[in-house]
């Protein structure tokens, strides 16, 4: 079990709900992955349209915790207003806070992120900030009231995996008691396993599953990788070494020369 803001979740895999070929495939992916948290968003609704209600019904059927995001927001004001609208729609104080600073890399604006995190925390939100692996930024976010951090593995949608192992390892080592979710940039289950082996508490991904040829199978693949990585972390892995060390005992070997 892992807990975020006091809510215990059985799975350490979080899944996004965007880009699936159909609602049915989305549902299959969630079922096979066992994911306990789903990210969602808010977008403009046309007058007679009831697309929002249809999507809401689908998410409700999944029986998961809902984590609304502020995806696409570039300013503090935009992110705060979006979070407030999402809180009313999804009836949760959780928000995956994104304040984007660059259009090509979708990397967070660290200054806006800290400011928005402070405003939202004071307004009663429980903030999951989408951040980089920067340690000082992480500390500022904690000072702003965040109790969970979501460092990126790589830019959103790239599937590059963990591009700064050193930075992520440092972050984990320096903040051992903060629940941390590697969010964004994962493309393969092995990359998710790697994050979990390093001691991260969970991973969040979307594109790697939704854009796979068989999203439901990939979702299960990621779920198994996350479990495997977590087990390995808890099992206290051996230290790597440069020279070989025989695993079979030498004592008692027959002398045949």
């Amino acid at each position, binding site marked *: 079990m892992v807990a975020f803001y006091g809510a215990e979740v059985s799975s350490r895999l979080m899944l*996004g*709900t*965007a*880009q*699936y070929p159909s609602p049915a495939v*989305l549902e299959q992916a969630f079922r096979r992955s066992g994911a306990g948290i789903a*990210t*969602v*968003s*808010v*977008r*403009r*609704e*046309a*007058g*007679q*349209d*009831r*697309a*929002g*209600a249809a*999507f*809401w019904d689908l*998410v409700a059927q999944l029986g998961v915790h809902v984590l*609304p*995001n502020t*995806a696409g927001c570039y300013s503090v*004001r*935009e992110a705060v*207003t*979006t979070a*407030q*609208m*999402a809180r*009313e*729609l*999804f009836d949760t104080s959780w928000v995956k806070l994104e304040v984007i600073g660059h259009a090509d890399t979708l990397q967070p604006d660290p200054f806006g992120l800290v400011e928005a995190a402070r405003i939202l925390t004071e307004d009663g939100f429980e903030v999951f900030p989408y951040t980089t692996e920067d340690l000082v930024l992480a500390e500022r976010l904690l000072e702003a009231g965040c109790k969970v951090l979501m460092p990126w593995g790589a830019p*959103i949608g790239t599937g590059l995996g963990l591009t700064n192992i050193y930075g992520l390892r440092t972050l984990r080592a320096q903040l051992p008691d903060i629940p941390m979710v590697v969010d964004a940039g994962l493309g393969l289950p092995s990359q998710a396993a790697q994050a979990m082996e390093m001691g991260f508490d969970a991973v969040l991904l*979307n*594109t790697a599953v939704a854009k796979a040829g068989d999203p439901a199978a990939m979702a299960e693949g990621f779920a198994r990788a996350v479990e495997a990585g977590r087990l390995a972390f808890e099992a206290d892995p051996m230290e790597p070494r440069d020279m070989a060390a025989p695993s079979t005992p030498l004592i008692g070997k027959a002398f045949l020369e």
Partner: protein
Amino acid sequence: MKIYVNGERHEVSATALDAVLDELGYGGAKVATAVNETFVPASLRAQTDLAEGDRLEIVAPRQGG
């Protein structure tokens, strides 16, 4: 009066936000609103009057990552 609804100009006759939503076809819909970039909770729609040129955003739950 003319207002902007999700970025497009609309002519509306109502002034209170809840009445404007009804007029635009959102009656009973699961939506959240912001006026001039400020969130307006559902509980305050009836007492929130719109003015000429106001920018109204109307959003609903959607897929997200």
